[in-house]
């Protein structure tokens, strides 16, 4: 248990620092192309969920997936290089930050089409059932994605066929600039599970251990052939939708309130109180993480861009 807690702490801290670095890099004109969409404040979801998974388990991500991928074990160097658009990136610069795929750790697909990953997760879970493999699929998406038709069709089909898939709705209060109550009348997305005949669970998405726990239970149900679960993780998006968003619509007090509830601080406090970790350990950890992150940035910066004509490759096999 202590071990698990520590692991969650380390993973969350790594994600936090990795993305804080991206926030910095974004400010430098032309460093990183495209949008920059971060999960700062939501790290407990990615780490908690992936903490309950095995290597063979598949994850399907969305536009806010740096955390998911790192938690699943993706190489930070390859991620960073991809975010920079370099040829050493995990997708040779073709994907960029928004659709990172890391098949090496079974992070098979990240899609920035809101809701677009959910039907795909039905497919990967179908393959797992078809092959009677002992692995499952986890699909990450937001509260906004739960308004897309693809959510509905997929959950119905997954429930119907008892597929081994966990639908993780990361409810961070916002869908773009819309607060939850501005995009749906229901208070809990988990409620919708009933409409498909599958269990729906709500969990504190800032409590990594709790997230891990419900995920592990849902995973057991998958493996027992009892079908999918919808898990709604209640959390909060500290930063804007992307780094260009000035958050004019997010009340300052709301942000402050949720920063109080920082998932990392929470577990850090516990570890300190329980004596599982010391202030010095933390400092050392911070230092080592900083080093890894700096290494990743250096790797990305020093890597070459792909040659222009490489754009023509990888369309067909």
């Amino acid at each position, binding site marked *: 248990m202590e071990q698990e807690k520590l692991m969650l702490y380390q993973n969350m801290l790594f994600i936090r620092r990795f993305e804080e670095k991206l926030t910095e890099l974004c400010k430098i004109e032309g460093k990183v192309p495209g949008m920059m969409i971060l999960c700062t404040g939501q790290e407990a979801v990615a780490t908690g969920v992936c903490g309950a998974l095995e290597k063979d388990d598949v994850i399907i991500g969305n536009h806010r997936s740096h955390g998911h991928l790192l938690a699943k074990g993706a190489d930070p160097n390859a991620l960073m290089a991809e975010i920079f658009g370099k040829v050493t990136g995990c997708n040779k610069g073709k994907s960029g930050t928004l659709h990172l795929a890391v*098949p090496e750790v079974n992070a098979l*697909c990240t899609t920035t089409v809101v809701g*677009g990953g959910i*039907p795909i997760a039905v*497919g*990967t879970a179908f393959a*797992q059932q078809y092959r009677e493999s002992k692995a499952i699929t986890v699909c990450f998406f937001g509260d906004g994605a739960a308004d897309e038709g693809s959510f509905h069709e*997929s959950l119905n*089909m997954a429930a119907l066929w008892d597929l081994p898939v966990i639908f993780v709705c990361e409810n961070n209060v916002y869908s773009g600039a819309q607060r939850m109550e501005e995009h749906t009348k229901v208070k809990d997305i988990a409620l919708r599970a009933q409409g498909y005949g599958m269990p729906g669970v709500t969990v504190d998405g800032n409590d990594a251990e709790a997230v891990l726990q419900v995920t592990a239970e849902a995973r057991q149900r998958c493996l027992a052939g009892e079908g999918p679960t919808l898990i709604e993780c209640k959390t909060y998006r500290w930063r804007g939708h992307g780094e260009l968003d000035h958050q004019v619509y997010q009340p300052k007090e709301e942000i402050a309130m949720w920063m109080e509830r920082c998932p990392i601080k929470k577990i850090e406090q516990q570890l300190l109180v329980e004596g599982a970790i010391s202030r010095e350990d933390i400092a050392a950890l911070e230092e080592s993480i900083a080093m890894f992150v700096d290494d990743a940035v250096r790797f990305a910066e020093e890597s070459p861009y792909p040659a222009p004509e490489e754009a023509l490759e990888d369309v067909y*096999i």
Partner: protein
Amino acid sequence: MQQITMGQAIQQALAEEMHRDDSVFLAGEGIGVGIHDSPLMPTFGLLQEFGAGRVKDTPVSEAAIAGLAVGASVMGLRPVVEIMFNPFFTLASDQIVNHAAKLRYLSGGKSSFPLVVRIKTGAGGGAGCQHAHNLEAWAAHCPGLKVVMPGTAADAKGLLKSAIRDDNPVIFFEDMGLFFYPSAVPEEDYTIPIGVADIKKPGRDVTVVTWSKMLGVAFKAAAVLGQEGIDVEILDLRTLLPLDKEGVIRSVQKTGRLVVLHEATKTGGFGGEIAALVAEEAFSCLKAPIKRVAAPDIPVPSSLPLEQFYMPNENRLIEAVKSIVD
């Protein structure tokens, strides 16, 4: 050789590939237990033969059906899913265009998506424009997809087998007007390569490039024109993407004249691509304007005489050919 319909030929291709490779499975609306129990339908009998584990009747959920194929294929299965009628391609199009076609590229070549989407298409049934709307031009404008549209039962069988064995996503259009007429289909296991057009009738004077059901119209017109001394070459495109540019150009180099014939509406149809290709790469061989014979720019009407008016026919093709052969 066996005389079977295109529906049966597809059935055979599906069954043979399912026997050959247990990673092939089928999914779609009513493909197992269907509301049409005709043995000529493409998936007739397959549920009985292969069981509910490999022949999945799905809810009416086109996006999920297509996503199922995307997800299953990246795991190494070979899904063959069905979209019941071409207009419903729209509902699956995000999964097909933004995912099936692009995810390999987005993975930097690490992943592949060996899936087939079968789409029933074609006007002529009187069901109207929400059941009939030939959208092959949409699919053919999406890099990452292959697009196949056979005009004979034998081609359908060989091409579907190739599609299933192909490691890329393939969109396979089946004109329902061809489901019910028997023609010769080889008995043995064979494939027809994707991306290769076929000269269905060699000729000297004019090239008619066509595909799918319109092949029959081309033959009818060629017979009449032949009697009048005009020797038509019929080039059946069979595959729209990747396009057999050489095949098209070679034929036009020979005849010097081109008419493109397709059932889809004219403006924005794939006939434009063929005409443009030739006007770009074989211009100097052209002895006359390039003609397109296609449906008028209207939705498919339901009433019989209106639907007949919609459908390109041999008379229009004959007229077009004559207008450029003197």
